């Protein structure tokens, strides 16, 4: 099924938790280096993430396994597939049946498991989770997997137990058997291995991940042919970097055990953190603030001041703060608030000429004493003597008369940026 990568991009944190590559036989040095060098642009990443190359590889493997089975059956031997993952067994079944059909061979296939009937019925009712090709079958009214038909035709027989009279009646060798358990320690696979382990014509198909030596010890001496194959179970390591690039998150959490397989280039924008079993991983908070919503009726009450040089507008705001489902809301308060005037905040450079003009409007005469960079001094004569020193953003008003001081302050305020 195609994955909707764009829908998931832009999130804060990705926790990478695919450990399947730890026991992957396909891991090799070349792939790791590819990890570091792959994917320049986003488009490149998307292409690399598509499953087409994987699908081809899997099909080749399946074909090889099927041809080995055909060889064994032609010699008169049977094939045993200890079942692990049904996701692997089902396509394999389809391949085997197609091959036998094309070669006009009629070989019985037995699935011996107590839960197989339920599982197989379930697989026919999950179209939403399958790839587009199989979904097309739903829309044309065909069964999603071929096995349903094959069971009806009697080519595949599903039995709960090995020693049931039903199975013994239809038992015929050579045959192909799918049966639990992949550990080779329980299930019908054990009895069947005992039956065939000394038969050099028969074939055992083991999924990789099983320690073959250990698992097969009770069945020694083993003359049966053993084919150990790996099937795709998780994401290939070479696809991980393109994946991170496509998902564009800010932080990526990677298991410590896979650390050696990740090399992050400097140009990449995400940060990597490593986590280990039983230890708490601490990630710094990405949030600079909180999400909030401002009610429109509160917005209408605002009286913004424009600051054109910075391309922003600012306004004082007073409202009721509510917290609902983790989000803050600012609304009009229920009661009329006493909008007590707060002392205003001032900033910005004071222009000497503007200041003089403002002073003049208040009937204060003054003159500029000296002017250097943004530091200047204004000397006031009337109505009282005063000195206004401006050094950067520190302003000192020296005056004996409090009224005049106040007037000067007002004049000063009128020429500054303020809120």
């Amino acid at each position, binding site marked *: 099924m195609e994955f909707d990568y764009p*829908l998931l991009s832009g999130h804060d944190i990705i926790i990478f938790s695919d450990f399947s590559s730890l026991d992957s036989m396909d891991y090799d040095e070349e792939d790791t280096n590819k990890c570091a060098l792959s994917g320049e642009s986003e488009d490149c990443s998307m292409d690399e993430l598509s499953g087409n190359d994987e699908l081809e590889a899997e099909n080749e493997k399946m074909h090889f396994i099927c041809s080995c089975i055909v060889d064994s059956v032609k010699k008169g031997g049977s094939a045993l597939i200890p079942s692990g993952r049904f996701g692997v067994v089902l396509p394999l079944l389809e391949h085997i049946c197609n091959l036998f059909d094309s070669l006009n061979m009629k070989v019985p296939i037995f699935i011996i498991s107590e839960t197989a*009937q*339920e599982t197989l*019925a379930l697989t*026919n*009712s*999950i179209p*939403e989770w399958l790839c587009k090709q199989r*979904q097309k079958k*739903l*829309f044309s*009214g065909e069964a*999603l997997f071929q096995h349903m038909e094959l069971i009806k035709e009697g080519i595949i027989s599903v039995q709960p137990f090995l020693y049931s009279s039903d199975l013994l009646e239809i038992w015929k060798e050579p045959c192909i058997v799918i049966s639990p358990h992949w550990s080779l320690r329980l299930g019908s696979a054990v009895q069947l291995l005992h039956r065939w382990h000394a038969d050099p014509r028969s074939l055992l198909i083991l999924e990789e991940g099983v320690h073959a030596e250990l698992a097969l010890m009770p069945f020694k001496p083993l003359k049966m042919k053993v084919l150990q194959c790996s099937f795709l179970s998780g994401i290939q390591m070479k696809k991980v970097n393109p994946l991170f690039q496509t998902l564009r998150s800010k932080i990526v959490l990677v298991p410590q055990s896979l650390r050696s397989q990740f090399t992050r280039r400097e140009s990449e924008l995400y940060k990597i953190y490593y986590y280990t079993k039983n230890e708490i991983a601490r990630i710094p908070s990405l949030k*600079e*603030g*909180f*999400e*909030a*919503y*401002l*009610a*429109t009726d509160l917005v209408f009450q605002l009286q913004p001041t424009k*600051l054109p040089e910075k391309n*922003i507008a*600012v*306004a*004082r*705001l*007073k*409202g*009721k*703060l509510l917290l609902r489902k983790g989000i*803050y809301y*600012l609304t009009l308060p*229920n*009661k009329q*608030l006493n909008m007590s005037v*707060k002392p205003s*905040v*001032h*900033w*910005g450079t*004071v222009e000497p000429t503007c200041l003089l003009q403002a002073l003049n409007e208040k009937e204060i005469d003054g003159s500029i*004493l000296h002017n250097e960079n943004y530091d200047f001094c204004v*000397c006031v004569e009337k109505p009282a003597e*005063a*000195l206004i020193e401006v050094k*950067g*953003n*520190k*302003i*000192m*008003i*020296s*005056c*004996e008369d409090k009224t005049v*001081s106040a007037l000067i*302050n007002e004049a000063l305020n009128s020429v*500054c940026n303020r*809120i």
Partner: protein
Amino acid sequence: MAIQCLILGAGQEVGKSCVVAMIGGKKIMFDCGMHMGFSDHRAFPDFSLLSSSNDISCVVITHFHLDHIGALPYFTEVCGYNGPIYMTYPTKALAPLMLEDYRKILVDRRGLEEQYTYENIIHCMNKVIPIDIKQTIQVDKDLLIRAYYAGHVLGAAMIYAQVGEEKMLYTGDYNMTPDRHLGAAQIDRLSLDLLITESTYATTVRDSKYLREREFLKAVHTCVAAGGKVLIPTFALGRAQELCILLDDYWERMNINVPIYFSAGLTIQANMYYKMLIGWTSQKIKDSYTVRNPFDFKHVCPFERSMINLPGPCVLFATPGMISGGFSLEVFKQWAPSDKNLIAIPGYCVAGTIGHKLMSGKPTRIDLDKDTRIDVRCQIHQLTFSPHTDSKGIMDLVEFLSPKHVILVHGEKPKMAALKQRIESELGIQCEYPANNETVLVPTTQSLKISASKTFVRNCTTELDGDERIAEGILVMEKGHNAKIVSEEEFLETIGAERNVVSFTGWVSPLAQ
């Protein structure tokens, strides 16, 4: 800001459901149905009222009933809509069967000109994107939709749509109680500006389902026990499966050997689909289907035309519903004259069909056309269990969701008026039931999305009576960014300026002199 709803169909009527809502500047078309009572252009919504077929962001279909999807091939192939079309998996699988079935009846039986061809249907359905329940779909960067389980029929969904902070839900047809093969509608506790709900049974409160089922089963049993034949005219999908499960179970329990027939073809093919879409049925079926698939009917067999006049009792499901033509009409002609036989009408019948005539009064004669006359001596039973919700269900849903505004569609005018009264008086929510081609403007409380600094939030104080938290700060609005509210102390830092500090002294420096 407002959500603008243009009702193109199912306004004060049942049929041709189609609502075009403009939410946050995006237009969505909910359902695209046809009216079963007309066979000319009146069957379709008036698409000419849309400024253009292609300024619609997406079309979403709730379920495969013809009065919700019948006009879709026309809209895409003839009117030229080529944007995305969304519907659930079962709807996408089963809709072509319904559409093609109806098209054949129109053309083959009534010899009428078809509004769209078989190729049109296939071409249209190929463009459909299937969606799952509770799967959030980002239609484009602003519009988001999500489907919720609606009961009613396999794959029916209620559609939630959101653009920015404006949210609405279109229910389509739904059922608040589970039945034999479907669960009840399930919805999250959403906070909605607008709810558009069906109101088929706006003033009916239905009593126990089991009582009504028993009545139906008794009528059928009495008829077949006396050697009569029972005709149940249904569409291939929907009620047929439900009634089949009911009868199959009853036959099993009572050990009855009378055959139950499905008219060959469509219904059997439909069962294949139902088996693959078990995930959309009721919990009971999902728990037991691996052991026994309820759609593998034990007592049901296919029917041949030659069997119509065979002696002996039987039960027959024949398409189409409402005895509007086709095979069910053929059988009706043969079986109606006998008083031993029974016709069971499963649901709502549109005016103009034979089903409707049978339901409204007891006719002894029906004139098909000037040459054909049918004597009706058989019994008529009307099934009163419907897959629609009753008025209690509608009120429960409205109360649960508590939207700011409600619009009623898909019902009859006087009953909708009564329901509107109830909603406004009991729940205090504004409610309307517009007629076709009317537009409703639903105001939405808009809020501006901003970010608030941590210091600002920490500084907010509590009023004396402890009820309200009052927050004070400075709102900084920068072009191209979200507005940000900060506390006074952070303000200057935010805009990158330094505070001017004024100090006073009474001493005048000699420099001045």
